[in-house]
């Protein structure tokens, strides 16, 4: 239902982080404040700390 059921390859660290940064830049240029940017930077760093393997 939520798209979380499907099996797939392990999430590779760093890929989402890069995409997230690009998406933010593309979609929110001129709208993000310092706090938002800090949040996104933190998000990217957090995602690099773990690898998830779905079972």
């Amino acid at each position, binding site marked *: 239902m*939520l798209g*979380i059921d499907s099996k797939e390859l392990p999430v590779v660290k*760093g890929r989402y982080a890069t995409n997230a940064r690009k*998406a933010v830049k593309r979609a929110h240029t001129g709208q993000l404040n310092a706090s*938002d940017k800090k949040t996104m930077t*933190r998000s990217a760093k957090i*995602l690099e700390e*773990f690898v*998830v*393997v779905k079972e």
Partner: protein
Amino acid sequence: MEKQNLNTRKLTIEKTKDSSLLSDFSCGIESIDDFIHSELQSYVDMGNCQLFLVRENSVIVAMYCLDNLNLYISEMTKSKMREGAKPMPQKDLDPDDFYWLKPFFDSVEITYLAVDKSKQHNHIGSFIIEYILKEIAADNNNICDFVAVRALKCNGYSAIPFYKKCGFYAAEEEQAERNLFMYRVVIR
């Protein structure tokens, strides 16, 4: 192949309908622990939420539940979104667009999220949130614009600072000793 940090920790996430697997789990907050051990199973059985267990080295370190939600966003919050003071969905939205007339918005709600007491302050909770957002963003069948939480406030404990740190914004006006609906925009 992307480089992997040697310090990267490996987690497994499994969906289950058996909350008894959490019998030894404790997040240290009495009301949440009581709920997990006594009432969660009935919520899962009734289909009110989907339960996920997060393991590290086969040990359950966290749990979370997801559900669909029609998120109420107050007019004041919507106004701030339009002004750019709060994040808004990435749509070509005119300030007068019909989109803003809706009181409720399709969302995925993180109904419960708890990290084992012995594993707290290790970024696991933050990671789970980022992971959920990433999965929803990657799901073409899911068109919701928001991930929502009802941040718990009880007996002097408040989850609101944690969710704020994770980039959530209040979807309604904050009131003392009352759970607060918060949201984060799904970035696709």
